[in-house]
């Protein structure tokens, strides 16, 4: 009996030890970090809009130049609790002004803070992990040019067990993967491969479209088999639509329709964009036309998801 207890305790200690090791926050390799260099802020501005940074980190009703004041404060109300977008302005005390490029890249691609804590995936590093080092360097350079905003947006409001950041290390092991989601274009082979590749990069990487348009499982990981197949709105009423080429639905939008929607905010039926997508569309409208065409080319040549399970 006593022996059994000792074995049990020993097993529990081993399990806890393994859990602790597996949940450790990860970082880039030294080699990867050494290859980074701060880049071109002009290019970085395009990366900034592609990444939608301002949609969460600027004041919720910001327009125009106010979008460049990244004091945070937006409340994302989700089934896991309320996430409050933090200050990522260039303030050294309240924002990320004191971060090195390596700190920045570790946050963006590994969801790990400079002091070694795991970020919650409400910050879409699960998509940003697919970004190139060059884009990260350019974005870093651009964000250095943005104004300092004072003030702390406040802590997340999460219940147990979601308030334990360490546990996210395990979650990241399951769901953080820099590989592309869709390996090759689907269809008759008439796709412009370079355009499609650019679209894939924008959609799966900085654009982080899948974070809302793909359903999640109970653990909060994306169901990649139903990539972009539509999902319940994580923060409110309604449903985020399926944007895969399903006949009679989104499949009836031509590539030109998709690019025009991202530019103007109008659907082929001249309904207007609504909800959170307004901010996304206004970001996309700031990109070069070729990027919107690339997104359209990609969305036309991915597997259709007939009916998402969630």
């Amino acid at each position, binding site marked *: 009996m006593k022996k059994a207890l000792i074995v049990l305790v020993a097993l529990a200690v081993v399990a806890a030890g393994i859990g602790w090791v597996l949940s450790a926050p990860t970082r880039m390799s030294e080699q990867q970090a050494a290859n980074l260099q701060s880049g071109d802020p002009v290019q970085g501005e395009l990366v900034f809009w592609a990444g939608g940074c301002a949609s969460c980190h600027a004041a919720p009703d910001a327009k125009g130049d106010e979008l460049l004041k990244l004091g945070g404060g937006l409340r994302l109300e989700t089934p896991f609790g309320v996430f409050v977008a933090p200050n990522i302005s260039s303030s050294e005390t309240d924002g990320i002004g004191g971060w090195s490029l390596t700190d920045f890249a570790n946050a963006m691609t590994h969801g790990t803070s400079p002091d070694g804590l795991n970020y919650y995936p409400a910050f879409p590093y699960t998509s940003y992990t697919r970004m190139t080092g060059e884009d990260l360097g350019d974005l870093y350079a651009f964000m250095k040019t943005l104004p300092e905003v004072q003030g702390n947006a406040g802590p997340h409001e999460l219940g147990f067990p979601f308030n334990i950041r360490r546990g996210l290390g395990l979650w990241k092991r399951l769901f953080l993967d820099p590989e592309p989601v869709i390996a090759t274009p689907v269809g008759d082979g008439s796709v412009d491969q370079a355009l499609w590749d650019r679209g894939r990069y924008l959609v799966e990487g900085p654009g982080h479209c899948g974070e809302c348009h793909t359903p999640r499982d109970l653990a909060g990981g994306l169901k990649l088999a139903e990539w972009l197949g539509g999902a319940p*709105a994580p923060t*409110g*009423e*309604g*449903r*985020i*639509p399926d944007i895969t080429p399903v006949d009679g639905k989104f499949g009836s939008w031509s590539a030109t329709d998709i690019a*025009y929607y991202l530019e*103007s*905010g*109008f659907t082929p*039926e*001249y*309904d*207007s*964009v*609504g*909800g*959170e*997508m*307004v*901010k996304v*569309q206004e970001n996309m409208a700031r990109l070069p036309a070729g990027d919107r065409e690339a997104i359209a080319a990609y969305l036309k040549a991915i597997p259709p998801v007939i009916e998402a399970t969630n």
Partner: protein
Amino acid sequence: MRNARKVAAIFMVAGFGFAGSVQAADDPIATRQAIMASVGAAAGLGGGMMKGEVAYTPVAGKAAIAAMNAAADSFGSFFPAGSDQGDTGALPAIWENADGFGAELAKFSAATGKAMEAAGKAGPADLDAFKAAMGPVFGTCKSCHETYRKKN
């Protein structure tokens, strides 16, 4: 007793159905949806001309602007208390933040009023004039849909 209740229920349902068919105009949800359908059609015509898919004529330009203007001035009257329930894309925010919704309607109305003025009697003379008049009207769609309409 149970049967009597059932019969009464059937009569009530039948009665509602009857009332509905006669008094469609008293159904605020159906009315505001009809107005918004005409806005969509006017946007389709206007947008088609802007994109060059439909040939521009001043008469068509005027028709699109006038439909928008009539909608802007009437739409807000069909959101009485209680009409948040039913087959509607309206969000509760319309009633929770009536001032904010009113401000969006006022923007819509101001834009269509100016477009009507620019259109004059015969309608905007050419496509560029039409774009200048209608552009600001189009700009008001999403600022209202961002906050007050359900996602779909």
